Every structure is written in structure tokens, then in C-alpha cells.
């Protein structure tokens, strides 16, 4: 094959047999041209794929100057490839973390040892419509950054952004739907509840025990319905990052005993005794309503899952009184090890829990919400358990809240004077 013949031999051949040498040279040139053309076509093809790919692909050199800017990038950032190449990526591409205004710059993701992945980054699209003070219009992406080492001391980082706006929008719509649906459902529930309350409390007629029992059941059912609505709303607020707290400095011992009092009857009905926490003055900075929601959730679970015996409530200072730890100790069936990871997740429930008759009703959201509330207030929640002996659910609250205090009266907020 002529291609295998080294140049020197062509030169030496040229001296002896010029005609043959010329022919050989022509062949070599033709071969080379063919290979080049193939290479060029392959490169164009790859370029074309890279440029037209659905993901945004941007490459930068070590000075963060753009070396590649594909079609999708052009469309998204509204800038031509020609104008983008050679510019610093942070000037051309503004990427934010999630739905915040915190900027993610090349420094954060480019030329790291490992491939960097940032989920839920966004860019803001300026549609020139400032009239509404709605949320900014954004496109959401998952960002992945890796780099290529070209050996000659040149490295390029490749940044790929895949569009997840559709998923984010769907998620938002789901949360909005839950918000609206539960809000709309609250009105009719309130109507029934109030009218029932009037029947029970303002009618002159003397009801029979049987009548009263029916009314009680209705009230109980409505209470459960309200609980479910509130749980769904809480979850959707947590998911949307819209959970708000009214932090106050309160005596949690008083709050706790008030909650025990409220659930005392349901424990008694099941033949369970509740041991109150020891008298102590325990001031903590919490949202009182959320505090009681966490505690009542733990206590009502303990009541629900304990068939006989006692439930003990403890309040103790921990970590040099930085926190108070509130524990609810039951003598229920305990939680099997394989279910540990499910307990604080949404819709999670241990198998033992599933055996409890369904008329008790539960959305499986309570513990998830409780833990989120505790965390948002600057504490935490957890449990320990021994099969056949019982479980302890605990949560902690800070004595000094990391959040700002609100000064409120109960039930209503007074305006700032």
C-alpha cells in the first residue's frame, strides 16, 4: 500500500524512477484528502449533534472563557454563539440556586475533581412584564459539570443543563391544587361543624343518649376530616417553602400538660394512664401551636398504638439547657428495625401500625410534619424502639430560638404599635 511507504523511500524512489514516484505521491495525496474529508465530516456530524442536542451544552477554558455554546444555549440565553465565545461564562449565563436569588457561579461547579451535579438550578426569563408582583418567571435545570484534560496543560470544563421546568411546574401545580382544594373543603366542613355545634349547644330540646351519641360521632368525623385537611395543607406549605412560624417565649411545661389534658379522655377510654412530666419551669422559644401539634401527634400515636399499660411524658433540659427534650414513652408493640427508615417519611408507617384497625384513620403524614416543624423551630425529632416493649418518640426545642421572636397575644396578632 502506498500509504505505508515512508516519505524517504518516495524521495529515494524519485531519484531512480521519477514516474513511479509521482504516481505514488498522487495516491498518497488522494488518500490523505479522503481521510481528511472523512474526519471533517465526522467532526461536523459530532458538532452538529452537540449543537442541536436538547440539553444546553457549554464548554469553558481555565479562564472561564466560553469555548463552546450550543444551539439550545443560544436559544435559552438569547445570545449568539459568536457573541458568547471568548466571554466569561458568569457574564453570559446567570444561574440561580433553586427559586432563590442566590447566584451559582463557575467557581462553584467548574474544574472540580468530581463531576458536579446541582439539582433545581434556575435562570430567570425577563418577559418584560413587571406589572404583576408575582413570582419571577424561571426555567429550571439540573446542572452537571465535568472536565476534559487535553494533556497539553489545557483543560476544558463541560457544563450540561437539562431542562426540568415541566417537572417543577407540575409539582407546583400539585401543591397549589392541594392548597386550593383543602381551602375550598374547609368552608363546607366549617358549616357542618358550626351548625352541629348549634344543635348540641343552643337547642332547648333535651336529647336522648342515643341522639347525643350520633352527634358526637359526627363531631368526631368532622374533626378527623379537619385534621386531614390541615395535614395536607401543612405538607404542601413545607414543600413550597412557605411554612411560617410565630416564635414566642413560653413555658412548655404548661403547654404540654394542656395537651395531655386535651387527650386525657381518649387515653382513659382505652384504659391507658398517662404519667405527666415532673413539675418544672421550662421556658423555650417555640411556635406554641406547632409545639402542641408535634406533642399531640406523638401522644395520640402512643395512645393509638398502645393496647394496655401506661404512657410516660418527660421534659428534660439537655446540652447545658440549650434545648429541652420532650419524650413520649409508650408500652406499645414497638417498631421493627426494617421499618425504622419509613417512620418520619411522608406516608410512611410501620407494619405494626398498619395492623391497627383503619377506623382510627391516619394519613401517614403526622410524623413527617412533626419532624419538619421541630426542625424549622431549630430542634429535631427522633425515636428509639424495642420490639414487644414499646417506643419512645422525642423532639427537642431550643431555649434560644435561631428565629426572630414575635410578640403576640393568644389567637390574634396585634399590629405593630
Amino acid at each position, binding site marked *: 500500500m502506498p500509504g505505508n511507504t515512508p516519505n524517504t523511500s518516495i524521495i529515494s524512489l524519485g531519484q531512480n524512477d521519477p514516474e513511479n514516484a509521482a504516481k505514488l505521491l498522487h495516491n498518497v495525496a488522494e488518500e490523505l484528502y479522503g481521510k481528511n474529508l472523512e474526519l471533517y465530516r465526522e467532526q461536523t456530524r459530532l458538532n452538529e449533534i452537540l449543537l442541536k442536542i436538547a440539553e444546553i451544552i457549554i464548554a469553558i477554558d481555565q479562564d472561564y472563557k466560553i469555548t463552546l455554546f450550543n444551539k439550545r444555549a443560544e436559544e435559552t440565553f438569547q445570545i449568539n454563539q459568536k457573541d458568547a465565545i471568548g466571554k466569561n461564562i458568569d457574564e453570559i449565563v446567570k444561574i440561580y440556586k433553586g427559586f432563590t436569588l442566590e447566584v451559582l457561579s463557575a467557581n462553584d461547579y467548574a474544574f472540580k475533581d468530581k463531576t458536579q451535579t446541582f439539582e433545581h438550578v434556575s435562570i430567570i426569563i425577563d418577559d418584560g412584564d413587571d406589572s404583576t408582583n408575582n413570582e419571577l418567571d424561571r426555567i429550571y435545570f439540573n446542572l452537571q459539570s465535568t472536565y476534559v484534560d487535553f494533556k497539553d496543560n489545557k483543560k476544558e470544563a463541560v457544563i450540561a443543563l437539562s431542562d426540568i421546568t415541566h417537572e417543577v411546574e407540575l409539582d407546583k401545580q400539585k401543591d397549589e391544587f392541594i392548597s386550593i382544594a383543602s381551602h375550598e373543603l*374547609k368552608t363546607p366542613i366549617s358549616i357542618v*361543624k358550626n351548625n352541629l355545634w348549634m344543635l348540641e349547644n343552643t337547642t332547648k330540646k333535651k336529647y336522648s343518649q342515643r341522639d347525643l351519641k350520633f352527634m358526637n360521632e359526627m363531631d368526631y368525623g368532622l374533626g378527623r376530616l379537619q385534621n386531614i385537611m390541615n395535614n395536607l395543607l401543612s405538607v404542601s406549605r413545607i414543600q413550597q417553602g412557605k411554612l411560617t412560624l410565630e416564635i414566642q417565649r413560653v413555658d412548655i411545661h404548661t403547654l404540654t400538660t394542656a395537651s395531655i389534658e386535651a387527650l386525657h379522655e381518649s387515653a382513659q377510654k382505652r384504659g391507658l394512664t398517662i404519667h405527666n412530666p415532673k413539675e418544672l419551669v421550662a421556658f423555650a422559644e417555640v411556635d406554641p401551636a406547632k409545639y402542641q401539634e408535634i406533642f399531640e401527634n406523638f401522644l395520640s400515636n402512643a395512645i393509638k398504638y398502645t393496647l394496655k399499660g401506661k404512657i410516660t411524658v418527660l421534659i428534660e433540659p439537655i446540652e447545658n439547657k440549650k434545648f429541652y427534650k420532650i419524650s413520649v414513652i409508650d408500652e406499645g408493640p414497638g417498631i421493627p428495625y426494617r421499618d425504622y427508615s419509613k417512620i418520619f417519611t411522608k406516608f410512611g408507617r410501620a407494619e405494626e401500625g398498619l395492623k391497627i384497625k383503619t377506623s382510627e384513620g391516619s394519613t401517614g403524614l403526622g410524623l413527617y410534619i412533626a419532624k419538619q416543624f421541630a426542625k424549622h423551630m431549630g430542634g429535631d425529632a427522633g425515636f428509639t424502639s424495642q420490639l414487644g416493649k414499646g417506643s419512645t418518640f422525642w423532639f427537642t426545642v431550643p431555649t434560644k430560638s435561631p428565629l426572630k421572636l414575635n410578640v403576640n397575644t393568644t389567637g390574634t396578632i396585634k*399590629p405593630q404599635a
Partner: protein
Amino acid sequence: MSYKLLLVEDEASLRTVYAEYLRSNGFEVLEAEDGEQATTLVANNHDIDLILLDILLPKKDGLKVLAEIRANSEYNKMKIYLATMLNNDKVIKQGFELGADGYIIKDTLNPEQLKQEILAAIEGSKKN
């Protein structure tokens, strides 16, 4: 003495229950089912002690009604409490900026508890 209330609530069934209970407890109760009725009633009853104002209302929404009442200094003495179903901070905050005196979350109160809140709102302010 008996206090004069204005209940602004488009949901008739909720409104009539509250109105009946409060009347039977000695309150004088005016009722409005939309924002326009509310402002008309306020204009004709300068001696209202407290307005319980729903936010989502037909014809004129609650925040607008609130702003109009607060724009007229003649009504300075009227307490205005927002009544909402949602513990929605944004709306409540807006309400306070417009001059509301407080709020209640409707679905957490039975008629008796509502009465207690109203009494506390009116009498609490008189002590100050």
C-alpha cells in the same frame, strides 16, 4: 351594654349561625354578604364597635373594604378583624398594613369561641 357588630361573610350558612348565636348573647348584629353591602352599612352605622371581615368576597374584596374604611377618620373607633380560613401570612400582613386590628382563623373557632374573641377584642381595647 350591647355591642354592635358587622359580620361580612358571603357564605350564608356560616354567617347566619354566627349572627344567631351572637344575637342570642346580646349583641346587635348587622350582616353583609359582599363588600359593597359592607361599605354601605358602615356609612349608615357610625356606631359599629367591631367588623368581622371576610377576605374573599364578591363585588369588593375584604382588603379593599378595609382600606376604604381606614381611609375615613370618622370610623377610627371601629375595630376591624379579618376572618380567614387560611393562616395565610401574606394576606394577614397586608391586612395589618392596611389597618386591621387582628384576625381570626374561622375554622378553628366554634360560635362560643368566636364570641369570646370578639369580646376580648372590643373590651381589651377599651382598657388601654
